[in-house]
Each structure stands twice: as C-alpha cells, then as structure tokens.
C-alpha cells in the first residue's frame, strides 16, 4: 500500500492540491482567496497531466535526428498543459478585474457581505 502511494506520489499530491483548491474556490468567503484557490486547482490538474506524460528515463521531446521514439516523454499532455496555463491566466485576470469592480462598489472582499449588501441595494431601488 505504502509502496503504491509512493509510486503514485505525483498523482496523490495533485489530487490533494485539487481538493484544497476546489474547496477554497467553492467555500472561502474572501474573493482573493477564491482566486488563489482557482489557481491551485488548475495547477494541480496540470501537475497531474505533466506527471502522466512522464516516461521513466525519458528526455524532453527535443527530437534528434535518427533517434528512437521511446527515448522521449509523451508530448501530448505537455501541449494540453500549455493551453491550460493560458486559459487559467485569462480566467484569473477576468476574476481579478471583477473583484476590483466589486470592491470599488461595496468596499469589501467578503462575498457573503457583498451579497448581503447587494440584496439590500436591490430592494432600495
């Protein structure tokens, strides 16, 4: 059992990180923490993918002339992760700009308080 865990260490760590990030994004009331949680979640999945692409004893996929293909790691997860990183940074920027707009309006970073204030404001108009 312990050996198996040690062997799958990358996967184990990445799901622990995924759980932490997911829960932070879902339940932490502070918006900045939520965004950090989002990044934790995304990077954990990238770690999972990158670990999956690794082949024991393989090299980075910079192909040399006339070499066997078994020398290299799997390039597919790498490409997926590259795409994913860019998507993650776009979402983060969008999230942060929305956070900033909200702070300018309600002077709080706590989503519960913001929701409360927004509800009040809605009845007022």
């Amino acid at each position, binding site marked *: 059992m312990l050996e*198996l865990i040690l*062997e*799958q*260490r*990358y*996967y*184990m760590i990445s*799901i*622990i990180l*995924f*759980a*932490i990030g*997911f*829960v932070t994004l*879902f*339940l*932490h*009331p502070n918006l900045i923490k939520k965004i950090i949680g989002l990044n934790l979640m995304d990077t954990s999945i990238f770690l999972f993918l990158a*670990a*999956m*692409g*690794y*082949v*024991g004893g393989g090299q*980075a*996929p*910079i*192909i040399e*002339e006339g070499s066997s*293909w*078994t020398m*290299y790691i*799997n*390039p*597919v997860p*790498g*490409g997926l992760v*590259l*795409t994913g990183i*860019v*998507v993650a940074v*776009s*979402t983060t*920027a*969008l999230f942060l*700009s*929305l956070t*900033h*707009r909200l702070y*300018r309006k309600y*002077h*709080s970073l*706590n989503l*519960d*308080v913001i929701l*409360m*204030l927004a509800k*009040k404001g809605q*009845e*007022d108009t």
Partner: protein
Amino acid sequence: MKTTQNNNSLFRRILQWASESEKESADAPEDPERQEFQEYLEYIDAHDYIEFGAYRYMRYQQRKELGLDEPTFHHHIEPSIPQKKQNVKKSHHKQGLLRKQLGWYRIASVFITCVIILILCLVVMELPKFGDLNAPALNEVAQRYLQQGREETGAVNAITGMILEYRAFDTFGESVVLFAAAISTLLLLRTPNQPLKQRKAGDEILTMVSKYLLPMIILFGCYVVLYGHISPGGGFSGGAILGAALILASLVLGAGEVERVLTSKRVTYITVFSLLTYAAMKSYSFYTGANHVGWAIPKGEAGHLFSGGFLLPLNLCVGLIVACTMYTFYTLFIPTEEE
C-alpha cells in the same frame, strides 16, 4: 466613496450604509406610485410564507380594494426604541449570523476536502503507474508525434509541432480565450478618455540594474519565440517573457514613456492583426488539408531557423498576442490617480 473613518470595521460600514439609505428614502419627494410600491414590498415582507409571486400581487390588490389593511405591517419597526440602540442590536445580530456561517464554512470545507481526496485516491490507485513505459497514454498518437513529427512538421521541438500543426485548432481557441479575456478586462476596467497616467520613475538602483537587464530580457524573449520550433519554448512562454519585459520597462521608465508609444489602441490593433494573420494561415492549411488540394508549404530542413513551414510566423503571432495581452492586463490593473 470616502472611507477614511477611524473605525473601518465591516459592520460599521454596513451600519453606515443602512442609515444612509434610510435618510435617502426619508428625504425623497413623496411619490404616490413609489409609496404604493413600498407598501407592496412591506406586504411581501409580512406575507412571505402565504402566497407567491404574481398571485400574491393579485391577492394584495384584492385586499386593498376591499380595504383590508393589514395591521401587522409595521411590526418590525418599534418607534419607542432609539435609533442608535436599534442599529447596534441589528449589527450584533448580523455578526452572529456571519460567525455562524463562518463556522459552517470550516466544517464543510474540511469535510468536502476529505471526501474528494478519498474518492480520487481510490481512482488514482487504479490508474497506470507513474512513469510506466507501457502506459496506455503512450500509444500510436504520441508515437507519431515523436517519430514522424520532425519530417511532417519540420519542428525539432515536438510540443511546438503538436500544438501548432497537429492540434492547431485547440491553439486557435486558446488564443481566442486570451483575446476575449483582454477585451473583457478592457470592458470592465477602462474608463473612456482616461488621462495618461503620470507615475514617478522607480528608484535609482532599480533603474540602473534594469537598464542593463532589460535588453537581455527582450533578447531572451525574442529568442524563445523565434526558436520555439527548435528549442524549448515557443509563442506562449516567449510572449509571456516579452510581456514581462514590457511591464518592467513601463515600471522603470515611468511617466508613461511606454504608454505613449504603445497606446491601448495600438496594442489592440496589434493583437487583432496577429489573431487575423493566425486565422488566415491556419484556415489556409485547414482548407488545403481537408480537401486534399496539395499546395503544402515547404518544410525546409529541420533544425534551422527558417524551417517548419508556417511554424515560425505562427509562433510570432502567438507571441505577439500573448505579450500584448499581458501588457494590456498590466495597464488596466495599474492603480490610477482618480481613486
């Protein structure tokens, strides 16, 4: 919105906000329709559990016609209690509520974390081993990328060859995400006719160091972009480095030097034209590939700078898009003076 009061506790702010709104409604001119609407809202408060939605509104109308005024309307306003005391009470109540919620959050977070970890642990145990040479992921797809990628795409770096040639449609979508995010932040954060920000330059040591550092960073970024199909790197990483260089330049030179050259309009134009060029090149190769027309681009000799067909200009386009987007994010997030 001035918030320079001494006690900036959250509840104080809520309190202030609430009292302000009360004042507003008291000062507002008497508007019969508005008053009627207010009455209706009070009716809603009082009868939340009896009737629903539009139906409730109809009942309310009926009752009013019949003159059945509800005496329970004002049950929640006790005029004998002084305003201040009431407010304090209210805030205590709110605080308690928040505290309770916070406690609930902690328990729920720990619980959900444990559940997710448990389920996924079981899954992970059954997955192929880490670093396994016979993993199912290492199938004919990866084999072809590694084995024939060099001839088919002319790229030495298999990852660049894959994302810009084999799976180019995904990469196109990804550039679109980036562009959409840039436009979104533009839509959310920019106010029109914003004056050029006048910031003071960074301190001397930083300026001196970065004067030597900056050309090197730019050179490195250009290298990573241009040699993306030969060595590790490519449009995304190189673009991010170039964007960082632009940001550093704008920080160090100060006083909007960089902004004057790269106005937001020009940055948007560069992004748009890069994206259009990318789309044009890729639609050419999609079209010719799918219809088997031929007209393939000469691949050149793998390992040289000018090789790999469209890879070099594609990398350049992606690099420009990423660098411009990063710079746009920065200019929009930098604090402005009106605040």
